[in-house]
């Protein structure tokens, strides 16, 4: 049995010695914070034009994470590349020859990458929150208000889970291009569009990103949206189930298929 600390160290070396790690994670942070800040500033100037129902359910916390719809795509790229480049470069054969236990290999890789994604995700959510609140002016909330800290920490968790889900999918599909070709349109288009279509709405709210983002809301049904059949933690739980399914699928593929 290979020593787990040694394999963790090796995976950390792998992740810190490729440039894609830096640019995907930097992208996730900058895009999320910048777009959230822009939307918060816009909201401040347009607040008086909101409908009364929207004013009533105005969620200053949730609005300061609105850049995550785009920023999460960089997290998807990060997660996919961490796993996918092993296959596209052929490194997977050297890696598995060095660490033949598939479980140890996958666990170490995902642990290191997810911890890194979590750190960047937390930094992103806290930065987004504080910058957003500063720009919201009179409409702002504070971290001490009920449920606000839960939403901010939840947003960081959400980012890490998106990355982990992508790693699971990439392990299953064993290709960066294929994984990105499925995940990017899914998160950016399909999930967004379906949740606006009346009939599909009820299905779409169980998608990982839809369900998971519930944790970022402080006001239930923020901005007069349809009430969700689950609470913030219930939503995150649904997302975790998606992640577990992707990881289980990935592990089975890694175990059964020839490298």
């Amino acid at each position, binding site marked *: 049995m290979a020593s787990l600390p040694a394999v963790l160290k090796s*995976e950390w070396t792998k992740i810190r010695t490729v440039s894609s790690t830096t640019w995907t994670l930097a992208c996730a942070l900058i895009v999320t914070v910048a777009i959230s800040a822009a939307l918060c500033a816009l909201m401040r100037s347009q607040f008086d034009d909101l409908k009364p129902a929207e004013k009533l359910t105005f969620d200053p916390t949730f609005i300061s994470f609105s850049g995550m719809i785009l920023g999460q795509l960089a997290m998807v790229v990060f997660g996919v590349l961490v796993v996918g480049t092993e296959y596209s470069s052929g*490194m997977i054969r050297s890696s598995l020859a060095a660490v033949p236990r598939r479980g140890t290999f996958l666990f170490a890789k995902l642990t290191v990458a997810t911890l890194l994604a979590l750190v960047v995700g937390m930094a992103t959510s806290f930065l987004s929150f504080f910058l957003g609140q500063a720009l919201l002016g009179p409409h702002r909330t504070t971290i001490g208000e009920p449920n606000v800290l839960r939403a901010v920490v939840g947003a960081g968790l959400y980012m890490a889970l998106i990355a982990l889900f992508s790693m699971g999918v990439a392990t299953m599909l064993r290709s960066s291009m294929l994984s990105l070709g499925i995940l990017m349109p899914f998160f950016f288009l399909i999930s967004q569009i379906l949740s606006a279509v009346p009939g599909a709405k009820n299905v779409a709210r169980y998608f990982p990103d839809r369900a998971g983002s519930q944790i970022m809301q402080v006001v239930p049904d923020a901005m007069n949206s349809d009430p969700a059949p689950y609470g913030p933690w219930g939503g995150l739980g649904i997302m975790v189930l998606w992640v577990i399914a992707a990881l289980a699928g990935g592990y089975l593929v890694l175990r059964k298929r020839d490298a």
Partner: protein
Amino acid sequence: MIELEGLTKRYGSKVAVDHLSFQVKPGVVTGFLGPNGAGKSTTMRMLLDLDNPTSGTVRIDGRHYRELAEPLKYIGALLDAKAMHGGRTAYNNLLCLAESNRIPAARVSEVLDTVGLSAVAKKKAKGFSLGMGQRLGIASALLGDPEILMFDEPVNGLDPEGIHWIRNLMKQLAGEGRTIFVSSHLMSEMALTADHLIVIGQGRLLADTSMADFIRQNSRSFVRLRSPQWERLLDVLNQNSVPFLQTGDGAIEIDNGRIEALGELAARHQLVLHELSGQQASLEEAFMQMTAGSVEYHAHGATTPGGPPPPPDRGAGRQAPNWGAHDQGRGV
């Protein structure tokens, strides 16, 4: 010591590796020879537990690969020169492999020096030529200072100086008592490096023999005769009970014949000769005939029309050579 027992790999209905059983012993270079597509790389991938065998087992020093705690310290392999991340430097590519098996970082610089890549250690691997990639792969195989080394077509892409270097490296490693298992599709390459030979064709074992035996059994010497008076020449040979073979191009070959005796015989019967020469069949030719046999066995039955080596018409009582103990795969 590597032991294979009934190792088989099927892809759907196609059998890539067919009940291979052999051992690779320490202290010698064992050549693994077969034409392209014979199943050499598939076999090597199964040795490293990268591909799952359909049936059969492989043991490394008596254990399954997955049971090896730090496998790089037991067995090092060069499978594919491109099995490295192009965006990472040569040094870092080796470092992450070393760390996973608790091999000190100093060893990384050491093996880079051994393969002559110290100068480009900090360069990204994607800029490497095929030969440099090959050297980097060899460096990764040497990382754990393993007792068993496996190289899949190591001379591919190397320049003459590199080929010379890898030959000497393999001999030196075998001299230190290590097990060296090296594949090639070139008999001439094996003749220079290998002490023992394992030949496969279509996934089946064709020969498992020492290099010396292989050479002794397959380096046929014969005398080649050509004459415009072909029919009379055959009569004369038959009258004197000289066994001969007719080749496709109108020449006659006499195994182990003496040039002098044959020349005098022709003179006595006043035969005009256009050629009278001593010949030595190459090992490459012996290898091609051996593997063509396995193709023949599977694909056509008796003959290979237009097959790669034009097989001479082995008419007059030529002995079937004995390739060694394991000749169940031969279809001749």
